């Protein structure tokens, strides 16, 4: 399974070119350039105030950038007025943290609303609504009102509503942030299924790395209105490059325990390496490769492999068993092509 590589050849669904947006003197987005391929699930992650919500609102024209270009399915929508944006928005589904269902309408009427807006006749709408409620597993709730549903059920209605007009793009604005972990899992499964079965492009904004880990193919990290890091989820989890990413992935990406970290010195009996790996190379016999070079048994001090959607990734802290500089250089040369992150942390005593 290597979805990101397959996706690289697909046509672009969303293109942002040099987007900047500020509110008064505060900069919400600064020179954002981003491309989302058709059929891809991209997780856009950042702390609150990073500019995520502004970015998603710019994608369907609810907000306008001060500079830059927004291209949806090949069409530049940057300068379109409200009226010209309407047909485009009808092809972009959106789901919200607080569901935003109409309380005065039944579940079926909520799901039918985008179809009504698109001008479909009642008989057509009824048929499509039933299909959609079936898809999200709420066929029996068609005539209930949103207030009678649980949070997870409400979000299912939100998803059915977003999918109703056969969108080319689904925007998810913190769609699982108000839900408990179990419900979150079920909603993410549903989104992953929709992506797989309908080939729908999905952009999820979230502050939860878990959401990204479960279903995103690619992650984009936003901080202070800038894209600070992006790449396949396994690579970013294996080797986060920036402080903010490290903070966000904490818990999913191992760090050296404090007692071990305290023992690391500039000099010592054996070198300690941090090796970040993902994809196929994560399953190579790295420890024995190192031992073959150094002639000493290499030991895993901490870390190991994990997997994200079937793709292995991991971070390993390895004690080489030697401090020999020439051997160390050889090890680094051998590991560089197969790792995404490599660092000599220092030296520890031989009995660590």
């Amino acid at each position: 399974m290597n979805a990101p590589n397959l996706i690289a050849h697909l046509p672009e669904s969303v293109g942002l070119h040099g987007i900047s947006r500020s509110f008064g003197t505060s900069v919400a987005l600064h020179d954002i350039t981003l491309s989302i391929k058709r059929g891809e699930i991209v997780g856009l992650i950042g702390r609150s105030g990073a500019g995520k919500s502004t970015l998603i609102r710019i994608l369907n024209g609810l907000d306008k950038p001060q500079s830059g270009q927004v291209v949806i399915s090949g069409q530049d929508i940057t300068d379109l007025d409200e009226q010209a944006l309407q047909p485009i928005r009808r092809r972009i589904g959106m789901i919200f943290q607080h569901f935003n269902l109409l309380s005065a309408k039944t579940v079926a009427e909520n799901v039918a609303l985008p179809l009504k807006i698109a001008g479909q006749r009642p008989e057509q709408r009824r048929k499509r609504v039933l299909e959609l409620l079936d898809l999200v597993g709420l066929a029996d709730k068609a005539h209930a009102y949103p207030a009678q549903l649980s949070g997870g059920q409400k979000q299912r209605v939100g998803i059915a509503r977003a999918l109703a007009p056969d969108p080319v793009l689904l925007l998810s604005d913190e769609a699982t942030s108000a839900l408990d972990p179990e419900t979150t899992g079920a909603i993410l499964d549903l989104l992953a299924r929709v992506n797989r079965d309908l080939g729908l492009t999905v952009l999820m904004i979230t502050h939860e790395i878990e959401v990204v880990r479960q279903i995103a193919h690619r992650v984009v990290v936003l901080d202070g209105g800038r894209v600070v890091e992006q790449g396949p989820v396994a690579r970013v989890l294996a080797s986060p490059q920036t402080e903010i990413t490290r903070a966000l992935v904490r818990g999913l990406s191992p760090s050296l325990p404090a007692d071990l970290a305290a023992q690391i010195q500039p000099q010592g009996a054996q070198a300690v390496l941090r090796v970040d790996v993902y994809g196929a190379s994560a399953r190579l016999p790295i420890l024995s490769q190192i031992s073959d070079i150094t002639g000493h048994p290499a030991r895993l001090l901490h870390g190991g492999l994990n997997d994200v959607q079937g793709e292995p990734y991991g971070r390993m802290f390895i004690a080489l068993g030697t401090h020999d500089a020439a051997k160390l250089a050889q090890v680094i040369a051998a590991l560089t092509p197969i790792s995404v992150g490599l660092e000599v942390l220092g030296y520890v005593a031989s009995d660590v």
Partner: protein
Amino acid sequence: MSQAMFELLLKGLWETAVMTAVSGALSFFFGLPLALVLVTTDRGGIFENLSVNRILGGIVNALRSVPFIILLVAVIPITRLLVGSAIGIAAAIVPLTIAATPYFARIAEVSLREIDRGLIDAARAMGATRWTILREVLVPEALPGIVSGFTVTLVTLIGASAMAGAVGAGGLGDIAIRYGYQRFETAVMVAVVIVLIIMVCGLQAFGDWIARKIDHR
């Protein structure tokens, strides 16, 4: 109470009901669109237009600040122009409507403003036109509050119509003043008050029932 007095009360009840119903219906008809304009032309509204908003807001405030008893007399020229007379039920409906329209508009406005902005965003994100947002989101979502507000307006109108009675519009207020007060017929006064209490309680209960029925929040 004599048969004649009973018939008098019945006539007064009918007149009050007609004044309240007609001016109520008219103030709903004018007040709801007014409320929608006030909400949607405000900053960040779907028809944002601050000058229209300020002007209408000013007119509403001006009308709301005139005590009804003064408004009643002040609009007599308009009343004459519209119904040809300043006396009678039809004549009372004009000032009642003029007073109740901004009153109801302000109450409806509050309900409309309480709608979560997220719902309007959701509709915009679906590609809804502004008219669709008005029809499918704003009005239905605010409807329970609008119905409650309309009930309050009707109750206020019953009270105001009694004042209109003082200038010859007929109705229960007229009877209470002429018979109960000026002729010292306490029984009539008490009867009028009881009828008014029953009328207001019944109306309020009915309004509450409707509001509850359509409220799915």
